């Protein structure tokens, strides 16, 4: 159902050109700022300079400093100000430079943005989209590598979105900006410039030639809450999102396994029907995420699969995740849930 729905609501305009994920995000911001004068972009270094990852390049020049501006280095202030701007009637798109820096903003996100509609019974809303690069694999050490999505999926009142391709990044970001609820939009920075198959010692690949890097220049949206079947298959279901979609795709190809790969795209609201349909079909389920294991989003996925698909399961559900340690700098590739661990898990699930 979700595949059909996503086709039905996807509306494309303009030429289709090749974009990497940063260009696709930039294009989404551009399209939305053009369409909606209420959209404002703010954050550390996002203005004149265009962002440390260049995601907001050119926007200040095009839309002016009243709509695209640099901020002081206070994440609490950035999100607090965005709540106030939302209450005024604007549609802020604040950037938190690294997801690792989002913690000072937690009170404003959890107690304010996420709760405003509820506590005021709809008098005030917080239609902000918080963009933030997340995840590791770039030798960022423990303060430039974390995957804190599980903190936000635990909070009632926010949506959490994680794209895995340039095409999805643009369509999902447009949908997030148009959404009247606060949305955390985590951008897997390891795949900003190209898909990453998990083999860190292999030469880096760009998005050139990738089918999902063909991106319309105009407006289109991918509805929040719809997973994408990245690969259809029968042998097992692998649930993943972000960078791990590519790592999983590559391993499935290497092993020649007929796996069904579900790219969640949105964690909250979750596309439970896509998960249920796939696991009931395959009877086996592997969950892969880069975030730490305990109370990670994988735990919720396991619980959902167990509750809904128990009698269809032919093997225990498995998780491959980051370890419950801080992200280590020099041992990054031992920490990263890469090809070795995914191969082991697939073999284990298929053994029974």
């Amino acid at each position, binding site marked *: 159902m979700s595949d059909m729905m996503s086709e039905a609501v996807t509306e494309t305009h303009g030429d289709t050109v090749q974009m990497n994920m940063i260009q696709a995000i930039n294009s989404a911001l551009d399209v939305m700022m053009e369409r909606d004068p209420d959209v*404002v972009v703010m954050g550390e270094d996002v203005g004149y300079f265009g962002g440390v990852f260049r995601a907001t390049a050119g926007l200040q020049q095009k839309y002016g400093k009243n709509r695209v501006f640099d901020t002081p280095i*206070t994440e609490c202030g950035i999100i*607090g100000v965005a709540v106030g701007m939302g209450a*005024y009637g604007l549609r802020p798109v604040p950037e938190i430079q690294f997801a690792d820096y989002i913690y000072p903003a937690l009170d404003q996100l959890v107690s304010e943005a996420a709760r405003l509609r509820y*506590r005021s019974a709809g*008098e005030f809303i917080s239609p902000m989209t918080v963009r933030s690069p997340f995840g590791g694999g770039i030798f960022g050490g423990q303060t430039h590598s974390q995957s804190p999505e599980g903190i936000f999926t635990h909070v009632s009142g926010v949506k959490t979105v994680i794209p895995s391709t340039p095409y999805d990044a643009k369509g999902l970001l447009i949908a997030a900006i148009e959404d009247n609820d606060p949305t955390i939009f985590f951008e897997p920075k390891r795949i900003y410039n190209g898909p990453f198959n998990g083999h860190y010692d292999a030469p880096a690949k760009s998005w050139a030639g990738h089918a999902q890097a063909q991106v319309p220049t105009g407006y289109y949206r991918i509805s929040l809450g719809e997973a994408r079947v990245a690969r259809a298959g029968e042998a097992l279901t692998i649930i993943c999102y972000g960078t791990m979609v590519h790592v999983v795709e590559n391993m499935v190809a290497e092993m020649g396994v007929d796996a069904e790969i579900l790219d969640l795209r949105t964690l909250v609201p979750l596309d439970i029907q896509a998960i249920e349909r796939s696991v009931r079909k395959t009877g086996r389920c592997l969950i892969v995420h880069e975030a730490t294991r305990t109370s990670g989003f994988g735990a919720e996925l396991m619980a959902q699969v167990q509750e809904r698909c128990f009698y269809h399961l032919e093997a225990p559900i498995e998780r491959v995740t980051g370890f419950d340690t801080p992200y280590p700098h020099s041992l990054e590739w031992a920490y990263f849930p890469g090809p070795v661990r995914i191969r082991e898990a697939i073999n284990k699930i298929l053994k029974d």
Partner: protein
Amino acid sequence: MSDRIDSDAGMEGAGRNLPPLRLHVPEPKFRPGDTADFSDFDIPPAGAQPRPDETAQPGDMRDLAYGLVRVLDEEGAAVGPWDPKLPPETLLKMLRAMALTRAFDARMFRAQRQGKTSFYMKSTGEEAVSIGAAAALASDDMCFPSYRQQGILIARGWPIVDMMNQIYSNKGDRLKGRQLPIMYSAREAGFFSISGNLTTQYPQAVGWAMASAARGDTRIAATWCGEGSTAEGDFHSACTFASVYRAPVIMNVVNNQWAISSFSGFAGAEATTFAARAIGYGIAGLRVDGNDALAVYAATRWAADRARANAGPTLIEHFTYRVEGHSTSDDPSAYRSADEASHWPLGDPIARLRKHCIALGIWDEEQHAAMDRELAETVRDAAREAEKNGILGHGLHHPMESMFEDVFEEMPWHLREQQQQMLDEWKAAGL
């Protein structure tokens, strides 16, 4: 051992003849049983503070962050350059709103004690802070209050039955019984949804003001927090943003001396004033007698005119006293001297404004007594009206399933599922 350390150039100290370090933990002057004595308070006479132009450079008016703007003198006369010279009808309107706020507080405090609701917070002694400001702002300026500014809603003429419905979480409560009593939200009155988390409203007010400025609007924002919560990071984030973008915002610190049981020293009052926080941010700072409605009005009007002239934000410290407990859950006799309130050297804000109106010949004691009787009836009648919609704990005033509404604009499947599960469980239990 010590020889070895002394001989090591990088490890000096342990063996040297230095005094031991001491940790300073602030202690208030008076505790239960002590006689409060504020005679050492440095209270400048009314009218003594200069009034700079609204567009003055913050650096040229630093003394005002350490002084105390006062308009009403001991005889009830309005004196000095800050006298806003208000017409009689404005003075009487403010007096009435302050008296109504006090009557409302008395009634709702009693309602909590009678078990009609879970919680209440009085603003006794601080009425001038809210009502003086509300009178000086335009009615469409946006307020981001803390939890003790009920006077703003009352001054703006918001129906008190609506406020009571919220306090009772009853079926007339527009907030559907979701918020702790007194955490009002009234968009139509320019009154932002109150949060229980302290000072989160500060950066929000700055953001609202920035949006207003970016849009070329004419409305400004005002926000309030207590002196205790100026210690929160949000306060400092807000001051930085307000300074950087010269946001049209008025940031009020209600220094009522007590944050639950912690005196203002735990927020830094032993070292400096709260208005002086403005100096480091390069924004205008005013320190005002918060029990003087005319001083509050004048300072707010000055700050509002400054904001409207694109001359930037103002931080106003309202020096006042929390006469009652923090809330109905608090017992101040456990931590402070019982006679602090009666010895408070800046008096009672209602008594002072009443004295002024009487001195002007526009009011008398009899009229005031009659007004108090009338307002007591007004709040009693309003409470009866609100109680017709129910009181907390007496039945479900909102359908159980409404709990799941407004988490998101559209209810996602997992909330629908949980909603259905709850209803099924109650049904299965025969309830």
